[in-house]
């Protein structure tokens, strides 16, 4: 006889809270929220076993809209809050929702260390290349020269590439998707959830109020095929409206080539998300417009030990010799008796 209790069939509605969603009309966050609600019922994890942790920023309101457990914490600290939660409650499915400012500026340190520990967390970074909640200052991913409220003469900081940062932190799962590319986005969220270890997903997200059209090249009907490249494991890097362009390695440099004219698919770079060394993933994370199509999909997905499991192993090893007993502890070592 089976002792399993069947999980009730869940729907996106089961994951929606009763709170009014208060993002600006037309914000890319709506799409990400919708895809999340679609993906969660497919994971076989009950809403009460799911926790969303966020920091501060527009994206960080996300937990309020989910009928799960949630913490809307303080600016930049979500990865640290989530780490403490996951370490003490490995049974929970823990998601971190963050933005480009929250994750890469004020919270850069926590992001770096959460990723290197490879806790089984899903970190979703909504990248809109602007500070939205504080009304339009430039962010760590704003492009050079970008005119914002705090940079009337243009941004002079070199932007960070979120995926390059994550790979530099020894990330075991790195992916990118786009808010309006809903099928791809839900596939990436599902892959992130299924990866055991820290999953880091960058989502291009349009802020239609303070940075509208930042990703027009990647979403526009006429431009997206030539300016993005969908990664598939084991497949050559091909892109373009007519799928006639590819990426070839020239020494250690990638270059865009046209297929035909003596260049076949076999000459192209083949994607390997399982490569032990992160070199290829890093190279892909550096490809950006206007010189290259920007890859979307899974850059890297490797299996590596998780912090919480290593800690649990150490505790189990310590308890193998017997669980702690307070009186034994108190009476241990050098003691003396006063009559």
């Amino acid at each position, binding site marked *: 006889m089976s002792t399993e209790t069947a999980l009730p069939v869940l729907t996106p509605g089961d994951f929606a809270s009763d709170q009014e969603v208060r993002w600006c009309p037309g914000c890319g966050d709506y799409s990400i929220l919708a895809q999340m609600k679609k993906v969660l019922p497919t994971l076989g994890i009950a809403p009460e076993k799911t926790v969303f942790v966020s920091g501060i920023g527009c994206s960080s309101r996300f937990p309020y809209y989910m009928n799960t457990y949630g913490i809307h914490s303080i600016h930049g600290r979500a990865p640290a809050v989530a780490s403490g939660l996951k370490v003490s*409650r490995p049974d929970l499915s823990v998601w971190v929702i963050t933005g480009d400012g929250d994750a890469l500026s004020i919270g850069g340190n926590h992001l770096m260390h959460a990723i290197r520990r490879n806790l089984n967390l899903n970190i979703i970074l909504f990248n809109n290349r602007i500070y939205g909640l504080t009304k339009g200052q430039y962010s760590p991913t704003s492009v050079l020269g970008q005119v914002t409220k705090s940079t009337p003469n243009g941004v002079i900081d070199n932007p960070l590439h979120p995926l390059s940062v994550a790979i530099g932190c020894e990330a075991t799962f790195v992916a990118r998707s786009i808010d309006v590319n809903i099928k791809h986005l839900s596939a990436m969220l599902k892959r992130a959830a299924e990866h055991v270890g820290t999953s880091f997903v960058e989502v291009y997200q349009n802020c239609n109020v303070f940075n509208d059209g930042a990703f027009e090249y990647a979403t526009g009907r006429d431009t997206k095929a030539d300016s993005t490249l969908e990664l598939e494991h084991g497949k050559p890097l091909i892109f373009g409206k007519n799928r006639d362009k590819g990426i070839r390695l020239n020494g250690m440099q990638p270059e865009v080539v046209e297929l035909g004219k003596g260049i076949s698919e076999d000459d192209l770079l083949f994607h390997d998300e399982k490569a032990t060394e992160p070199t290829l993933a890093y190279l892909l994370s550096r490809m950006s417009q206007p010189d290259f199509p920007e890859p979307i999909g899974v850059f890297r997905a490797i299996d590596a030990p998780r912090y919480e499991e290593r800690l649990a192993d150490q505790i189990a090893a310590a308890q193998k010799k017997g669980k702690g007993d307070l009186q034994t502890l108190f009476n241990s070592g050098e003691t003396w008796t006063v009559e």
Partner: protein
Amino acid sequence: MATTTHSKPLVELEAATVRFCGDSGDGMQLAGTQLTNTSALAGNDIATFPDFPAEIRAPRGTKAGVSGFQIRFASTEIFTPGDQVDALVAMNPAALTTNLVDLVPGGILIVNKDAFDEKGMAQAGYKTNPLEDGSLDGYQLFPVEMTRLTRLAVEGLGLGQKESDRCRNFYAMGLTFWLYDRSLEPTQRYIEEKFGKMPAVAEANRRALTAGYNYGETTDAMASQFSVQKAELKPGLYRNITGNQAVAWGLVTASQRSGCELFYGSYPITPASDILHELVRHKNFGVRTFQAEDEIAAVTSAIGAAFGGGMGVTASSGPGIALKTEAIGLAVMTELPLLIINVQRGGPSTGLPTKTEQADLLQALFGRNGECPVPVVAARSPADCFDATIEAWRIATRHMTPVFLLTDGYIANGAEPWRVPDVDSLPQFIVKHPQGTENGDVFHPYARDEKLARPWALPGTPGLMHRIGGLEKQDITGNVNYEAANHEHMVNLRARKVALVANDIPPQEVDGAKSGKLLVISWGGTYGACATAVKEVHAAGGSVGHAHLRYLNPFPSNLGDIIRRFDRVLIPELNRGQLRMVIRAEFLVDAVGLNKIQGKPFAVREVTEKIEAMLK
């Protein structure tokens, strides 16, 4: 065990205070610790004061590099490591010149004669050799060729000169142990445990220890030995414990007695790191330690653990606490239990990392944005850290609030005998978490019980899904709410919740006079000096009482009544008058301060003199 035969007269003392001092690489902390443990095992009451420089290894022989360890052992109950030392062991000229001021006139002065070469004396600022110029005539001076005699003792073991010289502290210990008729056995056991795997080193240390002991026994240098009998302590099993160790054991105990798994998020900082070092040894209790990337992650990870039902704890010292400030506000807003431990040190900024101070009281009480009340508990002595830790966590869980526990470098590093408790006699407060409702009732995360505490509902519980965060909460539902009246209501509610803790703590006790001319109010690590001073003056007929506060927010509800029973109030503090400011504000009393900000604890006589002056 004392030796059975004595070649020289044995003089009995009620108490003795000894200080070892030398270069930070001379092993003075070890020497002090060994004399401490040996005296504790001999049944004395003990109090210690380790005092070391912030530099790990300042240039050899300089005054900046002097490290000291003071221990007082007594046949009566004592509360401080002593104002002045009866015997000073100085390993070099720099140690002598920086420590001589604390030696009693006529006191015993043992120095390593070999270190008084031209270079050593120049580094200490001596123009002439103090061992020869008569400047030490007011003391019983014993210049001993410790370097040469130690080298001779370890000869033939194949040790280099550097390794041989490293045994000098054992030579100094041996001589001191002979002087106070202490057994060598505990130290011999220590050597075996610590150096057993390096037989030559173990043997060298053993030989140096014995050589020092025999020097006292056989040479004519010292005319008599001293002995300090067992103290009349409450019957029971005792062990020696430092404040940081007592905090760590208190955490493990509080975790077991509350049923919450301990999660300790911390970032290394002096003088709090030893709590982490102790806790990592207790994984068999399920203790999870997390050395975070910074102080902010240390506290926020603990908040994450608390949300999951764990015993979230973080510890630091002033500068680290400053970094945690915003997160403590989050814990106040989310009304999660959290324990924040501040092992205070000299400030502001980096300040005096290895020296003690009590200047973070106002930081604990008020150092956050907004109206942000947090209960504050302070430990008074090394052993008291154990009980204070358990009490702080009890308050945190019963009232659903972050709680501050204040200790300081003095009691954190200091040691005293601890009467080992019977586990069953310790407080037990198993935390109950709400279970899911079956009838589909809506769960209200900010509904409250009679203490105004909200339910601690854990992820994983069906039907209780809820979201918390730093934005203002609507009463009862916990939903985000910006309404004016709700905000004022919630601010007052959080304040009232913390104020209600006063109903859940014992009334303030008063030692000495219960009413009269002068009330001494103290808190934290100054307990020993203040208690001893009040006891002395009161025994001599002075109209003085002593209220030592464990609870600094809220105060015990009878504190105002106590204050009004006395004509005047004196508040000694190792700061510029932080408790005094709060007491004056709260009770409109013209309290007087005795303030010392030197990175050192009070000497008893400093408090006694002030009390006597105020009673005149």
